[in-house]
């Protein structure tokens, strides 16, 4: 069954807690491709950090994904991998979850912007 042939546009993938995944899947972003690879991952308290990291790296490699949504508390666990990804595609968006409100000071892109105001650089 070639359901995925000649589909215009790219996917939004989700890594997050139950409510985030269920919500965005209800919104219609979910897909399981012909290789049985979903574009979402539900993270719970039993999910290992390595599992989370592997999934994130897998999504980065997929060329049919344009946006990776990740709960900010999950992003904190793999911050080094997120900071290493500087390419605009796929875009990594850190989103708040039910239990963890959005904290702008933790967001990778805003931390990069803050780095532009390093006092040492301004003195030079």
């Amino acid at each position, binding site marked *: 069954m070639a359901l995925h042939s000649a589909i215009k546009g790219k996917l939004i993938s989700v890594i997050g807690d139950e409510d985030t995944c269920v919500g965005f899947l209800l919104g219609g972003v979910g*897909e399981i491709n012909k290789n049985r690879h979903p574009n979402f991952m539900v993270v719970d308290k039993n999910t290992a950090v390595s599992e989370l990291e592997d999934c994130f790296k897998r999504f980065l490699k997929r060329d049919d994904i344009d946006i990776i949504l990740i709960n900010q508390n999950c992003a904190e666990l793999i911050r080094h991998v997120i900071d290493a990804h500087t390419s605009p595609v796929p875009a990594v968006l850190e989103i708040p979850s039910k239990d963890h409100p959005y904290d702008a000071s933790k967001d990778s892109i805003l931390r990069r912007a803050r780095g532009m105001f390093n006092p040492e650089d301004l003195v030079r």
Partner: protein
Amino acid sequence: MTAGTSEKEAAGQLLDNLYLDMFHLIEEHTQCRVNLERSNASGAILLARTRFQHGGSNSVSTAQIPTENSAEFNALCRVVDSEDGICVERQAVDKSKGYVEPLHWFSVLPPMSLRHAVSKFKDCIELVAESTNLQRQLGEALDWIAKLRQIALLN
């Protein structure tokens, strides 16, 4: 000498403009995330209400969503490139083409609260596209600032 000074001035002017752009983009980006948080929280409350009405925490949970062993299906919404960055494009439900209705994973007759939750999460998806555009613009501005500062430091 004069040409060198005017070049430096022009670079400084450009850097000022880029910094100004960056501030505007940071403001818009943060506002967009706040709106996203609000919409997401409203959706989560409606999911909780649906669970409460159904009398069980498993009525709307990951137990109902498809797994790797489920049949393949296509995403109803995808992002496409347009003139103003990316935008969300939706497909109509059509089982024969692999576009399934996600609501039916949870209930054949979905309650109103679940339908309202869906509309909140659809708003979230629109905000995600807007936020992505802003983030990309911000990233671009930061790249230019870094480049210009490096040139300024070398001279």
